[in-house]
């Protein structure tokens, strides 16, 4: 389908378009034209990705400057999906236009997923793959080879050097699979192909971290130009990603390993002094001059990048007291010893970086400035020492990262020492959390650098929260409703059991047998009435476990068992994937199954239960965070003080975004249908925090139901759904053909003209009336 938005021709690879897709595209275009950021909430299952790509590619090809698109998603499967969509879109464009556009689209993921080296790729841990790859590809290894020493190199990497650097791979869209296959055929490394081709790509699809984690972004995304269009998809959790990328946890064990790392460095320095002192001397001389290696930033193999954000980076020379390698090693040792001493304290300590630094200085005479340079100095040293087994140095690297961060930021961070794992533990197992409280810190460079950043998700309500938390301003903020010819999903809020007792996962009554029994009844009823798959979300593992064991005692599980196979999510990801597998099989062969899982677990975030895999989703309880967590408390306080977001507002927002995320799992398209049950008294007041498209189909009458009322409504709904609904009835309402779209555009244009005329002079009443009539005629004709 080809149509125009203003003067921009869009090639949309489907014969029909949803009205909300059209609106979404219009708003996107508005954002790009205006050169600003936006937050858009698009109902899940309405083809968000394809609309986004169609519009941006059209925009890109239409304008001479060909702004690059950087599309960030969360998981591998989402990246793969987006690449596939892009590929289909480009194929459609070629067919329609009759010629192939000069275009490159690539996805990037970690070495672990893209490595081809026969032995390296078999490693299980990503960091080992990184490290081994480095030992086969680093510049100094190659130098050694040239000098005739016998060292191993990776042929896949070597072959890349034989190719033209800007044409490592032919134009086109390469899915990760395709890239791997091409790499295997041509014997070239897919990972480095993608990395090196990034400047020559029109579209890059990769994970959030490549842009948000300063340790990675500095290396991978540094050269992207300012006019890139950045998209964060599935961004409802983006604040947590930002925070995690700057937070560090240290344990006694990791510190011990760090000490071992320092000792290793020390040994290596002594060795090098006797064999190749010139290298160390050379490094020293460079540091004295304040020279940074010119190509340092582009060094694909760099041990680690400076974790401080570009704005805060110091561009001066390394301080004199850590210039010499041995001085620096002693410095690190002292710092780690200090941290170890802090770990010995047996009560909880929370302090800000300033007071940490003051105390550090008092005890060890370590000043702030050299601390800031720790990460950089360590990278330089590792490079000089030509270390290859860098995975051994990871804990040390973490300490250095921590050192740099704590000395760079005095606001938005907090150190929390927790000596015991839980309230009841008697054996100390201290963890030093260095936690980032301010999501805006990590994402700030992105907003500063790129003129258009698009933040979008299926559930990103309330929209205002995100600009507030992330510290940016938008030019477009929109939440779209879902146009449905018939209501194909049934959200409802169940507040009472059949005995009229309120149900809630609230702390006071959560283990009340009557509440648990009512929840049990709810589960039984819905398992009875809904076909195939049922998914149940609990607020936490702990709560889930206690409820399950109580249900067991009450015989509820036995009843459920008659209708559905029962499967449970566990923190172990392998067990969970097995459970999922079984769940799918049971749904496919008609046995039906119920999956009990956790609202913040893996299942709630990444797994879709489309069609018969999820006919009913039940949220048992409001998925609040564990509020006793000190880190959360600190963050709440920070939000209150800095952004004036009240604690309860944030907690409630956070709970509701997870609830919405869970509900969204079962509805993955307009031809899908499902029941969404929110089972907690407290949801009644929070319904406004649901995404607009869910709220729209939740009538007031359905917000205060008892279990049997809910059952009756659900039965009726399912009966309706079982009647086949001919596709042509949807046309013109929930899906548009090209004519429908043209008509809509014409109507909108006319409205606009009329509006302008009305504004221009008030004597246009007649025309107005005619206009109104015309529209109605047109509508009648259509229906």
């Amino acid at each position, binding site marked *: 389908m080809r149509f125009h938005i203003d003067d921009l021709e869009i090639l949309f690879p489907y014969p029909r378009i949803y009205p909300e897709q059209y609106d979404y595209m219009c708003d996107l275009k508005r954002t790009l034209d205006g050169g600003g950021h936006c937050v858009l909430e698009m109902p899940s299952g309405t083809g968000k990705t394809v609309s986004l790509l169609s519009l941006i590619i059209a925009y890109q090809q239409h304008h001479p400057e060909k702004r690059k698109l950087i599309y960030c998603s969360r998981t591998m499967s989402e990246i793969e999906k987006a690449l596939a969509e892009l590929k289909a879109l480009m194929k459609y464009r070629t067919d329609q236009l009759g010629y192939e556009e000069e275009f490159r689209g690539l996805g990037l993921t970690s070495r672990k997923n893209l490595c081809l080296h026969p032995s390296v790729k078999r490693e299980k841990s990503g960091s080992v793959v990184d490290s081994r790859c480095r030992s086969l590809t680093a510049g100094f290894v190659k130098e050694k080879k040239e000098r005739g020493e016998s060292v191993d190199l990776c042929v896949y990497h070597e072959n890349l050097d034989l190719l033209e650097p800007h044409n490592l791979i032919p134009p086109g869209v390469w899915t990760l699979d395709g890239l791997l296959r091409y790499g295997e055929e041509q014997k070239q490394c897919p990972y480095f192909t993608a990395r090196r081709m990034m400047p020559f790509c029109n579209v890059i699809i990769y994970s959030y971290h490549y842009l948000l984690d300063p340790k990675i972004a500095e290396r991978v995304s540094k050269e992207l130009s300012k006019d890139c269009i950045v998209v964060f998809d599935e961004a409802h959790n983006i604040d947590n990603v930002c925070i995690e990328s700057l937070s560090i946890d240290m344990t006694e064990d990791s510190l011990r390993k760090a000490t071992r790392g320092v000792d290793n460095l020390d040994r290596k320095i002594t060795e090098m002094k006797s064999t190749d002192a010139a290298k160390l001397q050379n490094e020293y001389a460079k540091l004295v001059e304040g020279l940074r290696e010119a190509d340092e930033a582009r060094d694909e193999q760099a041990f680690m990048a400076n974790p401080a954000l570009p704005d805060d980076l110091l561009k001066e020379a390394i301080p*004199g007291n850590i210039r010499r390698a*041995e001085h620096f090693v002693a410095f690190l040792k002292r710092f780690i010893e200090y941290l170890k001493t802090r770990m010995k304290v047996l009560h909880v300590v929370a302090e800000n970086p300033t007071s940490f630094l003051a105390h550090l200085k008092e005890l060890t005479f370590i000043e702030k400035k050299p601390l800031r340079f720790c990460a950089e100095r360590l990278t330089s040293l590792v490079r000089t020492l030509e270390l290859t087994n860098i995975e051994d140095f990871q804990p040390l690297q973490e300490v250095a990262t921590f050192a740099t961060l704590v000395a760079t930021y005095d606001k938005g961070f907090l150190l929390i020492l927790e000596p015991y794992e839980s309230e009841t533990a008697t054996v100390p197992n201290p963890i030093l959390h260095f936690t980032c409280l301010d999501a805006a810190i990590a994402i700030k460079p992105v907003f500063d650098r790129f003129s258009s950043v698009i933040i979008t998700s299926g559930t990103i309500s309330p929209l205002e929260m995100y600009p507030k938390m992330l510290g940016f301003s938008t030019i477009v903020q929109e939440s779209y409703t879902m146009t449905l010819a018939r209501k194909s999903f049934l959200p409802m809020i169940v507040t009472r059991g059949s005995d009229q007792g309120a149900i809630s996962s609230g702390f006071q009554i959560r283990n009340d047998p009557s509440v648990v029994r009512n929840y049990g009844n709810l589960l039984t009823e819905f398992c009875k009435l809904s076909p195939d798959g049922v998914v149940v979300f609990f607020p936490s593992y702990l709560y889930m476990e206690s409820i399950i064991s109580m249900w067991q005692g009450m015989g509820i599980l036995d009843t459920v068992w008659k209708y559905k196979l029962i499967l449970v999510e566990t923190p172990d990801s392998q067990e969970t994937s097995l459970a999922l597998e079984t769940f799918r099989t049971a749904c496919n062969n008609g046995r039906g199954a119920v999956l009990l899982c956790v609202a913040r677990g893996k299942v709630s975030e990444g797994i879709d239960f489309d069609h018969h895999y999820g006919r009913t989703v039940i949220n048992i309880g409001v998925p609040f965070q564990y509020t006793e967590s000190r880190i959360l408390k600190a963050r709440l306080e920070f939000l209150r003080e800095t952004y004036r977001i009240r604690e309860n507002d944030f907690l409630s927002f956070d709970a509701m975004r997870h609830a919405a995320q869970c509900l969204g799992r079962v509805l993955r398209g307009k031809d899908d249908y499902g029941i969404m049950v929110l089972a907690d008294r407290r949801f009644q007041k929070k319904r406004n925090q649901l995404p607009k498209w869910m709220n729209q189909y939740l009538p007031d009458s359905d917000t205060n139901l008892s279990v049997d009322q809910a059952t009756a409504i659900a039965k009726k709904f399912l009966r309706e759904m079982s009647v086949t609904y001919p596709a042509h009835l949807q046309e013109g309402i929930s899906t548009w053909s090209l004519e429908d779209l043209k008509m809509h555009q014409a109507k909108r244009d006319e409205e606009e003209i009329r509006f302008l005329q009305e504004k221009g002079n008030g004597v246009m009443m007649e025309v107005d009336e005619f206009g109104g009539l015309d529209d109605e005629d047109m509508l009648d004709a259509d229906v």
Partner: protein
Amino acid sequence: MSKQAQNNSASARRPPEEDEICRVCKSSRYLNPNMKFLVNPECYHEMCESCADRIFASGPAPCPYAGCTKTLRRNKFRKQTFADLKVEREVDIRKRVNAIFNKREDEFNSLRDYNNYLNEVEDLTFNLINKVDIEKTERKLLSYAEANRRAISQNDVRASKESQRLAAEERLKKEQAIQRREAAQRELDEERRVRAEGKADVIHKLASGESATKVAKEAKKTVLKRTLFKQQAEVDKQARLEAAAAASEATLNGDGDDLVFAGLKQHVEAAPLRPYDAYGGLAFERKMSNLQNSYDDGALPRHENLYYLKQDPRAMAGGYNIKEVYSQVLCEAFAGLGVFLSDELGEKAGAATRGTGTAGAAVAAATGSGDVQMMDAF
């Protein structure tokens, strides 16, 4: 907070590994769970507290470790801060070195110089730590300390003032945070209470038979009022908080037992002395006229011609140079020109009258005649 943590760490330190044994008396932690280990910064040989008490009870004694020749005193024994004794010793050395080499970055001409200084100090420290060239290094250290005694103590004072100020600020910040937290809590409680009251009120009214619609309407009205009130309260609270913050900022110096003064000027090097200038830099220069060596305008009558002033004994009577007389006369003649009445009238009335006075005097001087003629001059 951190300091307190440190103090408590002694008592709260959890038991180290069970197999810890005193190398002197061979008693182990297993037998004596309260055993404490001490070190003496002379040689850093570890021993348990009871050994230290026993051996050094009657004054200084040699270290019980075989091969150690140091003589130790009981009062120098202390608990170690770091698990690694090497670091413990290193830190002790650093403490000494840092007390001497406390120069600051702003005392150097360039960052590079400062870095070189740091490098050199670190080299010295390393020598001491690794026992390389100890004597030479010690000598250097001592002579430097001797030579720079004043600068060292000055920087010392500066540093301690800074850290005090920092601590005071930290304390203040923490207090404010607590206040804010409490305020937020209070607000929340208040809100809850009001809501509960409202609900109770509605129920009560309904119970006493008022019409439901009316009650509902009223309830809505109160809610609205409350929201407005809350918004106002929010604004007020903000103002109050700001005021409180300002106030405590002001008292930052007054509280606590240690005296810290706000706004102290950072230590400034005195500029070299210059000759005394009574006018404090005010310079006099002629704007209106040029002083010439001699004035002779034959066209003018004698009493108006400056030329004849030279011959006037009255002018020279004081022993003046004729040029000074000219200067004086010119000054009188031009004084006040360039003062614009209208400008100054705009200012205060008093200033204005003064301005007029000056202008009048100037005019009088210019015409060289009495008050009466002054009016005609304009």
